[in-house]
């Protein structure tokens, strides 16, 4: 503890929040992992299920402001340390909750459940229809491309320079042995590198697509349990590892090269809504419907900490400057 506070870095002192969680009731929660405590940052406001936080991202580089996408298609911007509401912006487009929120050249990019994709800028706003029942929209960290996917809406990659047609559309896998069509349900995906995308589906498959290759079908496929995969995350600094969570509260580490499950993390009681791995430390953060945030050690496979947050949780955001130097099993 002393060492961490002596450094006096943002995110390493005891008083700041290391992880942020959005709840179904609309609360934005700041969590201090060291103290095992949390605070409701937007406590004073009138909350409702319509204010459920569906996606959270950092609004700026130094991680002092958070954009929260609410279920009723509003983006609320909070100051990360104090929970002060800086701005609210109505981003009504299409129907359903916002399934993806990104920033492109300091402009907000949103995508709603019904497939209304918008770049919110004054000059040349872009409006796209990416297909119905979108479950996720993410921006590639390597380029300015966006990917979307959902129920009966296979993975599409969009380049905003030429928004008429998607750059890449995934092709459904071949029919099964009874020659029946395989249903499509993309629930989450991540960009592995410039061209590779790893996709988790509602039909318990983890698939890898290579958008630069000739083949539009997945280049590899893995099974995970029998229940829908809800969330997926890459393990930084380890190219071949990914973490996936499902609706029965199973979170597992996979090795893509070995094509197999490495370890299944213990301690979950409900559906996992979001998993994130710390960019430099071996910490796996997860939030689930059982109202807990858990921190696992991804190397040693042990549960380091779990914090009860009183509400069902829907989204998670970690502070990359959080070092967690002395996080011990507890």
């Amino acid at each position, binding site marked *: 503890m002393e060492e961490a506070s002596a450094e006096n870095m943002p995110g390493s002192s005891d008083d700041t929040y290391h992880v942020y969680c959005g709840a179904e*009731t609309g609360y934005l929660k700041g969590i201090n992992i060291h103290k095992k405590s949390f605070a409701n940052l937007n406590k004073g406001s009138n909350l409702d299920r319509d204010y459920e936080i569906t996606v959270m991202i950092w609004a700026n580089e130094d991680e002092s402001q958070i954009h929260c996408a609410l279920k009723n298609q509003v983006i609320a911007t909070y100051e990360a340390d104090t929970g002060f509401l800086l701005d609210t912006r109505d981003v009504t487009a299409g129907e359903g909750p916002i399934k993806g929120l990104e920033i492109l050249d300091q402009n907000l990019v949103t995508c709603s459940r019904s497939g209304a994709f918008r770049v919110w800028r004054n000059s040349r706003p872009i409006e796209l229809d990416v297909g119905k029942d979108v479950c996720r929209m993410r921006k590639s960290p390597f380029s300015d491309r966006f990917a979307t996917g959902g129920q009966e809406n296979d993975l599409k990659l969009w380049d905003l320079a030429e928004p008429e047609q998607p750059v890449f559309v995934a092709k459904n896998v071949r029919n099964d042995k009874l020659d029946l069509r395989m249903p499509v349900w993309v629930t989450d995906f991540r960009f592995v590198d410039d061209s590779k995308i790893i996709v988790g589906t509602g039909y318990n498959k983890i698939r890898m697509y290579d958008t630069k290759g000739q083949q539009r079908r997945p280049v590899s496929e893995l099974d995970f349990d029998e229940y829908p995969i809800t969330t997926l995350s890459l393990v930084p600094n380890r190219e071949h590892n990914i973490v996936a969570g499902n*609706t*029965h509260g199973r979170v597992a580490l996979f090795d893509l090269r070995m094509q197999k499950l490495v370890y299944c993390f213990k301690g979950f009681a*409900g*559906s996992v809504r979001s998993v994130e791995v710390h960019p430099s430390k071996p910490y796996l953060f997860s939030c689930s*419907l059982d109202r807990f945030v858990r921190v696992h050690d991804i190397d040693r496979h042990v549960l380091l900490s779990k914090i009860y947050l*009183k509400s*069902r949780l829907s989204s998670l955001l970690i502070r990359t400057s959080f070092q967690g130097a002395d996080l011990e099993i507890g």
Partner: protein
Amino acid sequence: MGRRIKKKDEDEPPKNWKGPGPNPALQMVKNISEIKNKAKRQEIYFKLKKEKNKAKREARLKRVKELKALGENAPPKQIPRTLENTREYDETVVEAGDEEVELDDQTDEFASYFNKEYVPKILLTTVDKPRGKTIKFCRELELVLPNAEFKYRNYAHLKKTIPKAIERGFTDFLVVNEHRGAPSGLLVIHLPEGPTAYYKISSVKPMTDIKHAAQFTSHRPEVLLNNFGTRLGHSVSRMLACLFHYNPEFHGRRVVTFHNQRDFIFFRHHRYEFDSDGQKCRLQEIGPRFTLKLQSLQKGTFDSKYGEYEWILKRHEMETSRRRFFL
């Protein structure tokens, strides 16, 4: 090899000991399991047991006497340690006046029931081919739950039935599962938006098997929900409360109890009666009796494959201690 005839040993202690102190015969062997003769061993064992019980009884009587003598100065009665009162610490226990839980309650799926916006209407069905005991159980459940309707399943799909049930104004949907001809599971689906809970049923005792049972009357019962302390228990108790009319007819003196003890939810159904001076209350059971154990709580209406679970019992992973309870 002839049988060795043992001479009567002079050192052998007498069997019928009347002298002061314990019988030396019993003092000879420290561990009676070392005695190889079964009859002998048994004899000594029963003797020991008798003495022990006697000593215990005497000690108790003495203690009672002392307590009586002390009168008001007597030390407080000791509370026995049980699994329940030594349960593992649970951080999710709901404290009264918790703002966040209250907000959750005001906005969750049961909020409209607790605001008295609708009267519960229950659809009750079983597996496809129910056997006698299951049908009997359902008929009794239909009696106990006000405004419940029992229908034969008739090979209907649950997922297809749910939207139709919502259309017809049902607010809860119960499905009784059966194993070996007896009810084994209860699925409770709150309509129209869920959640769905699955319970294991055990120890079913129908009304007819309850001795000196009281006559059933169709008054709306009072509902007691005991011991649902944790956040999960809170949700479960709200869900169970939703099965009954919010306005009980106190005139009928019917009371339905869901008593949680070590995660087992005991269902009991009584008629109560106060004494003429209103000091004591007598209970007479109406029945039926059964025990529920929560297996899973799922968000949304029934979808065991693609639904999201809020809580699911993972037996070997979660049941790490006998003192760990979830409700």
